[in-house]
């Protein structure tokens, strides 16, 4: 508990820990040189066993080992942030600051604080804890060869590939429980920017005849997959479904972007940027340009299910382009089943894992 308190104080001093209220439009970071320098500095602070935890091979198995389930359900590999001393913690934070945008870094802080909030409610010891977030470097950090920075825990999975065949910002999963809360005298709403953007979009398009997606959604569709066999311990919980197939029938995809008016189209772009601005701009800007190209937007669809206000479980919003796939869903909370919580997922149909994995 002492470590948690210390980390929270540190985040507060660094200016994090406030509600993520501003639209997530500030972008920076992701340039290869600062990221490499920060990783090298972090490596110098670590013991040999810690370096062995941090540095892992870039394989399909290691890359897809992210999850949105708590640690006790899906063990993570890598360097546990809660085990770092203050110098190592500062060096790790420099890696995050180099790789992520200011909004992406704030989301990391906020999601970890949400897990700290849940810690006293963890009666089944399933691992809610802001310390249970892990960092891995997959492959050898290089200016030219592919390697991957994997950072995540219960409600966050950053999978950033450098020097990949494609810009590597995805898969990017994020979620929060609770949706908003008070913790140590401060207000928090980790996904305020994304929920506001998706709510505004769903509300704006709700009157459109083709906007309501067929079906019901009680979780993201292209997320991790748990395998249940009755009588046995569930397995999986990672991205075992990769590579995924996606809907091709226009009737399953919502309303086409060209059918929206200018204001609605602007809301689509705001919503997609609220996700795409989380990794550093050097990583995600080429993707945003691809998603917002006239040719791509002509083939982009948006749709919703449930309540456009996103105040009911089963509410769902999706942006689905030639390569873009962004989901937002409202689910029952786990700690308090009377409340709801959010899951969100950004995938790229061509560039997941930097286009470096094939199965």
């Amino acid at each position, binding site marked *: 508990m002492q470590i948690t308190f210390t980390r929270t104080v540190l985040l507060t001093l660094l200016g994090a820990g406030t509600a993520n209220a501003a639209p997530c439009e500030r972008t920076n970071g992701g340039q290869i040189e600062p990221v490499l320098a920060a990783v090298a500095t972090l490596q110098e602070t670590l013991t040999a066993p810690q370096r062995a935890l941090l540095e892992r091979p870039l394989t399909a198995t290691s890359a897809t080992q992210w999850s949105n389930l708590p640690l006790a359900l899906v063990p993570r590999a890598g360097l546990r942030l809660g085990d770092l001393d203050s110098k190592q913690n500062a060096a790790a934070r420099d890696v995050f600051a180099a790789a992520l945008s200011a909004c992406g870094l704030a989301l990391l802080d906020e999601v970890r604080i949400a897990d700290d909030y849940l810690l006293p409610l963890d009666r*089944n010891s399933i691992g809610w804890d802001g310390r249970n977030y892990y960092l891995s470097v997959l492959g050898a950090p290089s200016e030219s060869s592919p390697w991957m920075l994997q950072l995540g825990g219960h409600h966050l999975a950053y999978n950033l590939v450098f020097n990949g065949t494609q810009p590597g910002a995805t898969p990017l999963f994020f979620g929060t429980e609770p949706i908003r809360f008070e913790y140590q005298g401060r207000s928090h709403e980790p996904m305020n920017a994304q929920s506001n953007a998706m709510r505004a979009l769903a509300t704006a398009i709700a009157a459109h005849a083709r906007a309501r997606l067929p079906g*019901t959604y009680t979780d993201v569709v292209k997320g991790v997959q748990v395998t249940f*066999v009755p009588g046995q311990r569930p397995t999986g919980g990672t991205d075992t479904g990769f590579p995924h197939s996606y809907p091709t029938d226009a009737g399953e995809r919502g309303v086409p972007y060209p059918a929206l008016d200018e204001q609605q189209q602007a809301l689509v772009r705001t919503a997609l940027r609220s996700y795409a601005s989380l990794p550093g701009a050097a990583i995600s800007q080429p993707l945003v340009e691809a998603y917002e190209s006239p040719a791509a937007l002509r083939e982009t669809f948006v749709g919703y299910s449930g309540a456009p206000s996103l105040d009911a479980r089963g509410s769902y919003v999706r942006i689905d382009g030639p390569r873009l796939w962004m989901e937002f869903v409202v689910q029952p909370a786990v700690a308090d089943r009377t409340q709801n919580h959010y899951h969100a997922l950004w995938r790229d149909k061509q560039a997941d894992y930097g286009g470096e994995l094939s199965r």
Partner: protein
Amino acid sequence: MPRSRLLAATCMLAYAAATAAHHAPNSFVRLDFRERSVKAEVMVPLSELGYALQGTPTVDAFPGYLLRHMSVTTVRGAAWTVKVTSVHAMTYFDQPYFRAEVELAPPPGGSARDFVLTSDAVTHEVRNHVVYVVAERDYADTTLAAAPRLLGILQYPVRQLAVRPPRG
């Protein structure tokens, strides 16, 4: 039961319960391969069934719903007989479920060892819903009961699965 096995079983149940709590609950089709027929135990979570029905599920209406959304044929397309013999409400890892026992019988002279299962129960509506099809018992393979095997999953838009017991 030895204490170590009891502890392991308890841990497994706690793990599975926690997993279920964090994941939208899914359905199961648990198969018992017999000499001339197959017994299927179909378990469907009421939360997701409610979305599929767009209303409150009832035991009385469930057999009709299941038969509208589940069929079995030979690999060449000849229909099997599908009969719901009982339905019960149950709790599975803290989630309310309906559990139906279903008798599957091949056409006269047909093999009961392989068939095509078609089912879109719940998945016709809930896009993230998964049905796990599991081989649990086989009269010709008594080892199966100790280690049931996942035969496949059904998730929208996939609604068909070719089924054979693990040891054919």
